[in-house]
């Protein structure tokens, strides 16, 4: 299987296979052509292959005449902020995000700081496929842009969305697991921002991650122990590129990443209730939370660019996904784990509540997530078979297939970032969720067996 995924707003692949310098340069040339040679911001995560990818990106952008402002190691939200702050035409984030170490990716950001939506991505990919690059003009330049002032301006901007003094007065004890990722280098400035040191775990950038980079309870053992040992009030596990967040409570209990979004809704609504946007795979608790304030929830296809596009359309105050990626609007143009953390810390400080207290108000749900390796043609066929395999459900076809009952749902779709079939189920009880999940697995197993493929 060719390990390459060209999806809306990003191109991802396994380094050494399909994701090689020539392909990367072609995409960088396409992006440089798309912004017509105007200035572009780039930032990289800390993974081993990022310097190679960066070199390829720089050469492609320069060849199409762009001035490249290289932030060095920088999170996706920081790149987004820098584009807006410096008035650039766009940006490229070099980060495999939640993918494992062998992957890397380019994420394309527009002048508004948002990942390219599907229409703009199509313009970009048209240029790429036609190889119609802007190579006849003068060569651009590259500048290393590592101003500490930029990071401070970014943090000030985040803190302007909350009552910073409340956080400072509370002397809330925070432990943060940076997973050796892009936000580690700004740990000290973040500590300065909240007025006292955070307990930093895995803050040093490392080329190979200390644990799988997706923030989910099974990867949060180290953080949970650190919280317990230090007696911290709150533990925060950040994604490598700073867009996803999952939490550990003061008892050292790692909590599901699915809870981050409904919690953010709760915290954001204290100040300003408003529309919420989530993707089709996100827990139903978002609707229940919003319903308490009589606010609507809009569902978009899975993927940050779809969620944010819908959020802009609907004037949402919170948008996000069950994976722990949350944008607090109107400040953020991308999912931003640090801003989400600041919002939750503010609420804990102002209400003098523990994380466990806050989470106890969120309706309990039981979910299962499957990521099943499956040849691409079979993955799409499997999705098509879901409606017939279940009965009595309303069928939504926003992104793959979502089958909804009164008290439970199942969502099956082909991943945009990995060669897998994703199936997510939710029920009000553990047994209900188990049953949906087992049934889903059987659907896929049977198809694989018919086609002579190995079982899951």
């Amino acid at each position, binding site marked *: 299987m060719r390990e390459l995924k060209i999806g809306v707003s990003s191109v991802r692949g*396994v*380094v*050494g*296979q399909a994701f*090689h*310098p*020539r392909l*990367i*340069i*072609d995409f*960088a*040339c396409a992006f440089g052509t798309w912004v017509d040679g105007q200035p572009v911001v780039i930032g990289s995560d800390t*993974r*081993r*292959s990022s*310097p*190679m*990818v960066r*070199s*390829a990106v*720089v*050469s*492609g952008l*320069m*060849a199409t005449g762009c001035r490249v402002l290289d932030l060095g190691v920088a999170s996706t939200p920081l790149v987004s902020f820098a584009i807006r702050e410096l008035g650039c035409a766009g940006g490229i984030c070099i980060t495999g995000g939640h993918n494992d*170490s*062998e992957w*890397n990716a380019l994420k394309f950001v527009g002048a508004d700081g948002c990942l390219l939506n599907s229409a703009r991505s199509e313009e970009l990919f048209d240029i790429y496929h036609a190889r119609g690059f802007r*190579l*006849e*003009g*003068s*060569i*651009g*330049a*590259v500048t290393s842009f590592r101003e500490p002032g930029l990071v401070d301006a970014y943090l000030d901007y985040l803190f302007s969305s909350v009552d910073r003094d409340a956080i400072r007065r509370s002397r809330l004890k925070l432990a943060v697991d940076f997973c050796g990722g892009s936000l580690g280098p700004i740990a000290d400035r973040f500590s300065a921002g909240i007025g006292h040191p955070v307990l930093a775990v895995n803050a040093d950038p490392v080329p*190979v991650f200390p644990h799988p980079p997706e923030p989910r309870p099974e990867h949060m053992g180290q953080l949970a122990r650190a919280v317990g040992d230090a007696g911290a009030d709150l533990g925060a596990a950040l994604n490598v590129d700073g867009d996803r967040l999952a939490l550990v409570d003061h008892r050292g209990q790692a909590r599901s990443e699915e809870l981050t979004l409904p919690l953010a809704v709760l915290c954001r609504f204290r100040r300003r209730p408003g529309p919420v946007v989530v993707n089709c795979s996100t827990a139903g608790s978002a609707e229940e939370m919003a319903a308490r304030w009589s606010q609507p929830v809009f569902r978009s296809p899975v993927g940050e660019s779809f969620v944010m596009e819908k959020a802009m359309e609907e004037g949402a105050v919170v948008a996000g996904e069950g994976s722990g990626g949350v944008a607090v609007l109107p400040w953020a143009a991308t999912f931003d784990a640090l801003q989400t953390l600041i919002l939750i810390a503010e609420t804990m400080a102002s209400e003098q509540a523990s994380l466990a207290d806050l989470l106890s108000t969120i309706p309990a749900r039981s979910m299962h997530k499957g990521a099943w390796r499956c040849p691409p043609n079979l993955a799409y066929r499997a999705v098509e078979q879901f409606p017939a395999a279940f009965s009595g459900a309303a069928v939504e076809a926003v992104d793959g297939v979502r089958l909804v009952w009164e008290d439970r749902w199942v969502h099956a779709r082909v991943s945009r970032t990995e060669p897998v079939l994703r199936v997510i189920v939710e029920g009000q009880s553990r047994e209900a969720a188990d049953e949906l999940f087992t049934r889903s697995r059987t659907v896929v197993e049977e198809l694989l067996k018919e086609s002579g493929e190995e079982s899951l």
Partner: protein
Amino acid sequence: MKSPPLKIGVSGIRGIAGSALTPQIVSSFAAAFGTWCGQGEVVLGSDTRPSRDMVCAAVEAGLISVGCSPVRIGIVPVPTLQHHIRIRSAVGGVCVTASHNPLEWNALKLCGPEGVALRPEQFARLLDLYHQDVFPRVGFDHLGEVRIDGEAIDGHLAKVRSSVDLDRIVRRRFKVAVDCCNGAAAVAAPRFLESLGCEVVAIHSDPYQPFPRNPEPLRQHLAELCRTVRDRGVDAGFALDADADRLALVDENGEALGEECTFAMVLRHVLARDPGPVVVNLSTSRMSELIAAECGGFVHRTPVGEVHVVQRMIEVGARIGGEGNGGVIVPAVNPCRDSFVAMALVLESMARQELPLSRLREQLPRLHMLKERIPASPRTIASFLALMRRLYRNETLDLSDGVKVSWPDRWIHVRSSLTEPILRVVAEADTPEKVRHLLDSVMDYLRPLAPPE
């Protein structure tokens, strides 16, 4: 307007940066080169052209992807890079420089682990890898990594200093002028000369400005240096090309000696103490043979191109070699044309003989040389050369690189340029009248074949 195409040849891969020399082609070529070298360190440096960062980034990406680690040494003279390959025990080196091509051009000059440009058969293998376009890309945990090394220039200059009689040079406290052509020479030449105890007047020494003159150090391009020498009353003027592999001299009277004198003067100085075999290319002045006859030594001739000269030097064990265009090669210091070696040896000669440059020039045989260039396509070049072979079929011919016709008192050499679509014609004789007559008679035959300009 359609831009000129890519030119791929032994002396490198070159074209207008961006439109012909695209980052895609550069990264693939670098991946092919990394494959040819094998995994290890590859030294990477550049001249001062505005496209250098773009081309270097593409080279880095290609090298890293096949498991090589680029060692960035920044803006450096070409001989510095070649010297540093051996110092780091690197598996190869890439210099991003288009030498004397116009500013919007760029090129990759590729060197093997000995610090020598690739030989034609090595280059052929590299080209084969490039054309097959399948590179052994490594997984993320075997990728190369970028290393940064700021020691290359100091190491190179120290090595050159250690090869000459430093005390004697320093004691003379020479006053010299140097024209760096705003090239990579500017980052090293003035301080090198100061470290030899010289008082230095540097002109065109800002590497971030465009070239102020044609970068070839030919007599007609050196008016400003000659004026500086006269106005400032210095002992010697040194003119370098932009990548600092070639040197031309201006004497204390402000007379440009002509680039052919550089090698001849250094050769006489070296052979006087250390007779032995000498290697020069076919277009180099016959002064070499006359000096070798006087001091002891035998002259071997090779096709034009640094790589050919160096290769023959290794074969015959020559301790000195060079080219008439101002290139001096002393393999014990650096197996390539090195203007720093040349400057040090000229100063050593002045110090040892206690004579001014004009007097050293007088010691050299008096010969007269003329050079011409005719624009030509690859097809017309073939017909030019066929005509030459026919015209002079009864004379003494050397056909190893174009056509060279020799008589006891004169010779003429017609060949295709390695870097430009032109035909180069060089003639030399013992009197000005003879050389003019020889050149004119050949040009009369060739000109009618040239396409209208």
